[in-house]
């Protein structure tokens, strides 16, 4: 939900001069957002069914829910908190599957690269690298 942003919320502070009642750091906000998304996986399930129907059919309802839940948690770990970013991360999870060959281990490096501070940009780069890697493997 867009009420959560990655920046600390100034609204939780009292005006200057008063003692702050509550201060929420970005990391805490991320955890709250992840928790909210886990409680309401419907948009992610809908996204998965719309874009990856075959994979969803192969997984079945119960396993799909487990995959979505795991993707939300893992995405939260990479700093992805918005529904949009998590859906895009879920695409990666559904496309590469379990990755038994550990062929896409480098994705973790890209998604947690400290040189890029914006988690959304890290995700964009990870998706592009994956697309180019898949293209090189099939053309």
């Amino acid at each position: 939900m867009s009420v959560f942003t990655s920046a600390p919320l100034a609204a939780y502070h009292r005006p200057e001069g008063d003692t702050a009642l509550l201060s929420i750091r970005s990391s805490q906000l991320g955890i709250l957002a992840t928790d909210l998304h886990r409680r309401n996986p419907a948009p992610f399930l809908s996204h998965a069914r719309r874009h990856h129907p075959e994979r969803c059919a192969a997984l079945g309802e119960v396993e799909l829910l487990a995959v979505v839940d795991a993707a939300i948690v893992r995405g939260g770990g990479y700093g992805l908190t918005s529904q949009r970013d998590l859906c895009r991360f879920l695409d990666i999870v559904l496309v590469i599957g379990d990755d038994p060959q550990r062929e896409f281990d480098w994705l973790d490096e890209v998604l947690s690269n400290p040189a890029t501070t914006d988690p959304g940009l890290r995700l964009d780069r990870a998706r592009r690298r994956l697309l180019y890697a898949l293209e090189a493997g099939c053309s």
Partner: protein
Amino acid sequence: MQLEPPVTISPTLATLAATEAEEPAQEQSAVTECPHAKQAEQPKPKQPLRVMFWHLDELGGGFHRSTDRPDWAIAAYAELIRVLKPDIVVLAGLQRTRGAVPVPVDAKVPHLVMEETAVDSGVTEAKRILARLQSLDGGAGWTARFVTASDGSHVYQFDSTTCVLHRTDGGITFKRVEVVDSAFTPKLGLTGKLAQAIFDAPKQRDEPVHVVAPLGVIDERRLVRDGPPARDPDTEPEATGELADTSIFALSAPGDLRAGGAFGGFRAQVDALYRLPSSEGSVLRDDHWKTVGEQHGALLANYAAVGLDDLLLQDEHMHWEALTPPSHARKLDEVRGRLADAVLICHGRTTGKPNIEGLRVVDLVRAALTAKLLAEADADQQSSTDDSLPSEDGALADQQQAFRADRQAPKPADDLANALAACRYFSHALSGHWPVITQIRWS
């Protein structure tokens, strides 16, 4: 021109690419908007920006081409640009010619003094194209910008430079050209230096528009014969800027861009927006008998050297019964080639992503065919155009006729294979590389 070998797209790639292309749905707001709230004014939609890139293969002279291009070639370059209506055109492959020239001497006894010098012959040819374009498309206000040093001299890398033409009637104003350091990857055509032209285009984008291409080109024949060119840090131009995080990036490779994984790695590195690979090539494959002639030096008679556009003559004199008869392209989708030229839309941010409305190789065979021959060769009407980009069909038919007249060669037999061969021959006379054009729109 169809790629050989053809492109195959795995279902996995297609699925992920489809999700990349789709604009994600707006997230549900936590606050319900008041139905009586005054609607914020929608920003005015931006105009599209059209950019064309063409590697003009030894423009200004080289081992395989003369210093001056014929008038029909200059007319063809200008006509194609006029028809395709780009806002910005990047021309690569402008050579400088090195050699000994006589210099004036102040002496009582007349004598000849020769001096080793370099002539900006490619730049002179580019100015001829500009002059022709200005006369053809007078209202557009075409102008040319070159990469120059502080003293006004032209800047080269491996004896070639890159120039940018742009039209000024649409409110696009040129700011400057910078030299930017890049990787040195000869097989991708990366020379270690980039030319980055910066424009203000307020109708197309609120921020400046950066158009980038390698400074100079890597010659395919030299790369094969001598290996990668040696770099000389003492003579290379100094970098004057840094690569922008959002740019239109053109490149021209000496070989097949698809070979190996370097192109994919490079595209990921420069944050190029992903597009599924197209089936279009930009460099023609050689005809059957030309390949045979180059591979077998002991041929008694090479009729490909007599007339590249007379395939029936070549078959008649060079084919013998024990060989499988060669098949020649009689339809446009049988013309084969490889991908060497590309325009990438790079965007290293999460917001303000440009939308690629069109991106394709300009088909010079289609451009050179007359309407009648085009109807025969393209019976399935597989036009290479899309909605956003103008068609090149038949645009250079007159110039192809001028090329034929200029050669004064015997007229080959009337056959569709010969007609297509003539167009391929003509397109190669313009450049071994076909142009690439794109149209993008920022939101």
